[in-house]
């Protein structure tokens, strides 16, 4: 890549180039002249991941600017992050994956070994189950990046976990496996063996190149449709057992405390959800007239079957167009035309997945799980999002049931 000077004035991900008054009258930048053969985005584009202000930057998260999203693929540079010990920097020639426990033969695989197996690719979403945690009690963050930005979609490539488990031979009685990361948090989660065999895979590729460092380079477990935290990054070890390991991330965290004091554990599935990304919080509609409302819908249970949109506070719902490709456990782009009459309006979207599950209101979720105090019912907020369009055209985050 180019060194400092070229980057200095440009936004992240870009390099500064000369802007000529008439670009047809002066030669542009030659091939490979300033990018080293790996291109940058335009210097006129500025959206970035936004870090939530946790106490440390190493245990923190950053959110995808969904208000700028187009189609279904998230640019790898804008994929949301959640780390508990920072981004590990791992030399792939030294990385090793161990698989042991209740197996016929404990084995270790280096990255070369792993790449020799038959591979698979899958375009699917990841979502942190903490996505929306600020929104339980009242509308809090102002943009869709803040309310929903802990979900992103990539094309992941890797090895089916079933292939590797077949390689070591899971002993009868093996029911759970521990996935362990090679980062400073040595992050661990227990995964049901049944899910592991069904569709989990170890990804070394993301959007056509090596998986990005902050997504677990060189190897990440992908658990399609389940909470993002289970998709262990920088994975270095899998241990098979007869019971779950009851790690900190599946007891202290990622459990759902109910008003009666009991807590739901292993709430794995990211249930059907949708959100309007345009228009959304902090935008300004400049005039009444035609708008193509658009957003994303997804379900950890499979295909998005239907997205309905209301522009009148949930009184009437119209079915939105689903843009292809429509893939299971993947962001699906929807849109619907809207003639804005210039009066205050509440915009909402509601997703139905192939199981018939309908995205609930936040009120319905609160009725089931309680608010349980600020940030106590933290995870799995998949309620209907409401955006208010004021008569001025200003769009804001509201709660409206």
């Amino acid at each position, binding site marked *: 890549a180019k060194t400092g000077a070229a980057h200095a004035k440009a936004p992240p991900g870009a390099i500064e180039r000369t802007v000529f008054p008439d670009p047809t009258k002066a030669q542009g930048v030659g091939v490979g002249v300033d990018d080293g053969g790996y291109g940058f985005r335009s210097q006129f584009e500025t959206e970035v991941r936004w870090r939530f202000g946790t106490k440390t930057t190493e245990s923190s998260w950053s959110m995808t600017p969904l208000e700028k999203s187009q189609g279904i693929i998230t640019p790898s540079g804008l994929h949301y992050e959640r780390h508990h010990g920072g981004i590990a920097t791992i030399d792939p020639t030294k990385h090793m994956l161990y698989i042991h426990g209740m197996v016929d033969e404990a084995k*270790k*695989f280096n990255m070369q070994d792993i790449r020799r197996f038959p591979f698979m690719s899958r375009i699917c979403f990841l979502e942190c189950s903490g996505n929306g945690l600020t929104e339980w009690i009242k509308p809090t963050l102002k943009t869709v990046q803040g309310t929903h930005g802990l979900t992103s979609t990539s094309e992941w490539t890797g090895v089916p976990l079933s292939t590797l488990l077949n390689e070591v031979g899971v002993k009868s009685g093996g029911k759970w496996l521990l996935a362990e990361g090679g980062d400073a948090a040595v992050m661990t989660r227990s995964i049901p063996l049944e899910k592991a065999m069904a569709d989990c895979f170890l990804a070394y590729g993301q959007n056509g190149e090596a998986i990005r460092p902050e997504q677990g380079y060189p190897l990440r477990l992908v658990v399609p449709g389940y909470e993002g935290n289970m998709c262990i990054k920088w994975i270095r070890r899998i241990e098979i057992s007869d*019971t779950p390991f009851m790690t900190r991330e599946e007891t202290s965290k990622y459990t759902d405390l109910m008003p009666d004091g009991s807590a739901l554990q292993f709430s794995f599935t990211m249930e059907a959800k949708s959100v309007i990304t345009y228009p959304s919080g902090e935008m300004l509609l400049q005039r009444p007239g035609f708008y193509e409302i658009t957003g994303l819908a997804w379900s950890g249970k499979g295909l998005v079957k239907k997205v309905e949109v209301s522009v009148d506070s949930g009184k009437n719902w119209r079915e939105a167009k689903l843009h292809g490709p429509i893939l299971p456990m993947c962001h699906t782009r929807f849109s619907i035309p809207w003639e804005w009459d210039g009066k205050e309006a509440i915009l909402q979207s509601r997703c139905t997945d192939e199981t018939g599950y309908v995205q609930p209101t936040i009120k319905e979720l609160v009725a089931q799980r309680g608010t349980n105090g600020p940030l106590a019912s933290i995870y799995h907020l998949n309620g209907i999002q409401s955006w208010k369009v004021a008569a001025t055209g200003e769009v804001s985050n509201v709660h409206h049931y």
Partner: protein
Amino acid sequence: GGAVADNHGKKFGFGHTATPEELSQFVSPLPDGRGLPKGSGTVMQGEKVYTQHCLACHGANLEGGIGDRLTGGRSTLVNNDPTKAPVKTVESYWPYATTLFDYIKRSMPFTQPGSLSNDDVYAVSAYILHKANIVDANAELNQDNLAKVDMPNKNGFKPAGR
């Protein structure tokens, strides 16, 4: 084509056998205590470890700081008051003592993860559990008795089924 690759019905034989010695670097105890490494530590030893390695972030009274609050909060879990937060700590919320050992062993101290000996981890676990009013001041925890520690919220969890 399905999303999952076909293994062509055979083992490939890639990779190598992992030796017990290599595997001994890993620690991940189960809630019943299987997998706990040998070692032991007392509350008093743990106080030293805590003061030296943990206090800066978790507070002199385990009340939290840069790191989470570790004690207190029993009786706050039953709650549906949107103005009050339940206090979820090792004391009030964690169902298994093995999780405490496991997590400290792998992730703490935050900036020097994996730097403590097993004895030190048993010790600081004992200290935290003592300050949480779960074990006595003279308790010594080790691979055999840690899983038997009676955690206040051990029956607090049920599978979500979703």
